[in-house]
């Protein structure tokens, strides 16, 4: 049996919102019984694109995280409503039955991802169906994935090792994670390269403040004194450590031959632009 999923590579997402708009096109005003009833206009977001701006000053980054129903294997919404109001199909897609779920607002509140909306007029919770009606009619893709211009979103059968999605998840296994893994719900939506804190800055020489310094060595050392990461400044004198774990104290050291090294402690509770590090001549 198929096990449908969607993989989203944040590094490729351009934040174009095509997925969001295509989803509206499929569902606003359109019923797909028995899977879903029409989404009311400008009231719900079955897929949303969260914009994350991080860093500061000239060292800034923007990422986008498309978030829809995660079609969890252990979906809390299923337990919240009455029997059959929310069910998981054999292919893994979680469906809210628009008839049986009527009046059950607790389904909405059960979702830790907050991706279920309430239809005031019809008195029913609603969410992404992973375009189950399209798949059932033989389509090979879903609307949000179809319009993704960079292939950041990949849809497919995760039970089939030869599917595009399975191959992608296998090839980039070290980058694959759940969005909010702390919820522990085993989502069928997988993310690659979710935003992580970075540390960036610039190194200059105090006796040559009018020149950018290329080739200074910058290292990050952890509590135990192990060098975790090492880089060199680029032609702008800039350095950057990306993809760091959150909440760690690092010692950052900048070294250039003939100059005293500089050290500082940086905590990755958020991304940091440490500014300009000036090295003094020996």
């Amino acid at each position, binding site marked *: 049996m198929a096990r449908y999923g969607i993989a989203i590579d944040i590094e490729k997402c351009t934040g174009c919102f095509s997925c969001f708009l295509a989803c509206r096109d499929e569902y606003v005003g359109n019923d797909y019984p028995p899977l879903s009833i029409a989404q009311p206009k400008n009231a719900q977001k079955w897929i949303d694109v969260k914009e994350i701006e991080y860093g500061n000053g*000239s060292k800034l980054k923007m990422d986008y995280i498309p978030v829809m129903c995660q079609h969890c294997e252990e979906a809390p919404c299923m337990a919240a409503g009455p029997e059959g109001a929310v069910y998981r199909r054999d292919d893994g897609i979680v469906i809210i039955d628009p008839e049986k779920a009527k009046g059950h607002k607790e389904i909405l509140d059960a979702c830790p991802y907050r991706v279920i909306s309430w239809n005031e007029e019809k008195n029913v919770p609603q969410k992404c169906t992973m375009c189950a009606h399209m798949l059932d009619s033989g389509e090979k893709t879903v609307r949000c994935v179809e319009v993704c211009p960079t292939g950041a979103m990949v849809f497919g059968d995760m039970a089939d090792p030869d599917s595009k999605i399975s191959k992608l998840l296998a090839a980039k296994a070290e980058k694959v994670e759940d969005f909010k893994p702390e919820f522990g719900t085993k989502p069928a939506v997988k993310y690659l390269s979710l935003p992580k804190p970075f540390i960036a800055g610039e190194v*200059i020489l105090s006796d040559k403040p009018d020149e950018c310094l290329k080739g200074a060595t910058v290292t990050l050392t952890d509590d135990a004194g192990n060098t975790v990461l090492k880089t060199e400044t680029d032609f702008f004198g800039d350095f950057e450590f990306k993809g760091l774990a959150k909440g760690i104290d690092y010692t950052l050291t900048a070294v250039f031959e003939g100059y005293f090294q500089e050290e500082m402690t940086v905590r990755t509770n958020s991304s940091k632009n440490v500014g300009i590090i000036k090295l003094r001549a020996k």
Partner: protein
Amino acid sequence: MSEQVFTNLTNGGPISVYVKDGKITRIRPMQIPEEEYKPWVIEADGKKYSPPKAMHCAPPVYSERDRFYSENRILYPLKRVDFDPKGERNPQNRGKSGYERISWDEALDIVSGEIKRITEEYGGSAITGMTSSHHNWGVVGYKMGPFHRFMHMLNYTPVLDNPDSWEGWHWGATHTYGFYWRLGMPEQFDLLEDALKHTEMIVFWSNDPDTTRGTYSGQESSIWRVWLKEKGVKCVFIDPFYNYTNAVMDGTWLAPRPGSDTAIAMAITYVWITENTYDKTYIKEKTFGFDDFKNYILGVGDDNYAKTPEWAEAESGIPARKIKALAREWASKKTCLSSGCRGGQGSACRTAFGTEWARMMVLLQAMQGLGKPGISIWGTTMGAPADSDPWFPAYAEPQGQMGRANIAKKKLCFENKTKQRLFRLTLPEAVLTGKEEFWGDGFCGQSLEQQFVHNLYPMEGHSKVKMFYRYGGSFFGTMSETSKWVNMYQSSELEFVVNQDCWYGGEAKFADIILPACTNLERNDIGEWAACGGYTTNAHIGCNYRVLVRQQKCIEPLGESKSDYEILSLVADRLGMKELFTEGNTEDDWAKLFFESSDLSKKISWEKFNEKGYYLTPVPDDYKPTPSMRWFAEGRDCDTPDTSNPKKGTDKAKELGTYTGKIEFASESLRQNMPDDKERPIVPHFIPSWEGYKSDPFKKYPLQIILPHPRFSFHTHYDNHAQWLNDIAGHRVKKDGYYWWPARINPIDAKARNIKGGDIVELYNDRASVLCIADVTERIREGVIHSYGCSAKYDPLVPGKADSTDKAGCVNMLTTSKLVSKHASGCTPNSCVCEIRKWEG
């Protein structure tokens, strides 16, 4: 009834339209079976690059269904309640009064009656009219089709467009490297392959191609930039705004003060000159006047100073060391300059003296060997392999226009007896003061000299304009200092105003009569994706596939709306000109005639094209890339498909379109035609803006504002009509039941004014006051406000009052109508200062 699927085309891509029970239910990117795709392959560094087998439209296209059924569709003919063509006209109430529904008969009688009356009283030159661009798509039904044919038939006074997205290139760069036939923008052929194979660094200068997207080619190039990123091509962004492409490419961000870009460019050349890191052979063989330029940069001569990086730091706020480092890296690597989505364009070209910036962009690359492998001016949105040979009509070329094409028996656009012209940027002044002068012929694509034509209005023997026929879209959001448009509309000089559109835009309710036009989903047409033709030949190279589309009528026109062709045929009928206008053709007869005149008719029958709905033009197996400007760099004849290059195929085919045939550091066309112009001198100069960071107005209004092209709409199109877009925070933000237009402000500036994100703020200066919602973000440099200049809605607190605060985000009310310079008739929305405060209501 079962679901039917139709093919059609938009300004951002081809679509499949699903219809059930007479209603459009869904609109998807055009569905083409996978086996029909024959994607090209580019090999670079042992890797093969090939596009996906799918069409990727611009984001707003996916809201097309919502736009189609918008509550802002114009469905019935309307008359302003206090407009009486036989009595009181009350022009002063335009923009204030309401409307009443009238019958088509009544509407057509009034419009044709006024045309007759005004023609008899004043002559055809008293009628003027103008269109916006791209609210629809199609060869037959779009602006340069029936509207132009009809208006020229009346001997009207045209309003010439200004090249509003590429002013500096048009009025400046043409005098540096020619390409006037491309309105100053460079060739873009095969530059994707060139970049993948050779380019080591891309400098994006005032350019956000992920947002502006090659204009009409949707998101086809998004994947190209992902490839370049994955390949490790270094990216540098020079922009006061940390733009969306910067976010995708994760490049280095340099944020200059608006209006200082020319200084930075000059300082880069200073480094190259003083460190001897430029291509001297190229300079000697391919360029003209370098020594004059060198002297200017080095500060030789009276009243001159050296354009050092330290000087540029004082202007721009970019540290001198960063400018030097960029210059050195640029010279040591194969560097592509991406200065606008089509190579040319970019916000910096729409500024005071923006000509000088665009000229400098060309000269920077000239100093590094423009046209050599990896060294290009490339927007990153065009330049896919394509078969450009088969000819298919496009709306902006004579053979794609029913008033000019050979398929027409009477080429009415050539028979207009009126020689008088108006100019869009000065239209309000012309109407209000009754006289106007301007330089150039709007789009000066015929010659370099065309820019030096001086136009006077009214022209001798012609009438001032009395009737204004407005078609499609609104300019309140997109032109400059647009409160003047309110005054113009309320002038009694305009005795009659018609607005013909599919949707209510800001301008519609300034008309006396509103005529409901249907969209191109409600009529038959033909069109090619992204291909505008005219001054941008082969624009399909922004798409991964060349797609020719039979635009199929999907459903009957909504309400009482009619196609533009039908409306104008009905008016023509009442004028006794129906036969002259239509030549007995239906709208679809014209479509078929155009098809038959095209090369497509040799490949597929009309019937088959009708049925299938599209044709994919494959890239030949033996495709030979001809990268832009390579021919020039290598001293060969021009070999690109730039068919409008007048020297191509002649004994001067090795030359550029300048007077010397070379890249001109000192411009011969300027020297020979306007040698004393201090504002567009022979050698490009840095000239401080009259409304920049050192100007007098800045003392009173210490924030600069920039108004780039929008991300989630196109001109004013889709905004306010496709309301799904209103839930995208980058487009509009809902607060207290109203969808506000965002203005982005740096946290330091926000804090100084006690402004928080989500506050309603008033942007104001001596010209206007506009309300926006504050987006407090580090993405905009300190001292600068960023807001897109394209709101479709105009919603003054006091309707019809020109100086009333606008609630809907027409930030262009703040910008000045001053031109790029005295003789460069371009708009300058990015040379504007303002102040911002929390709006207390």
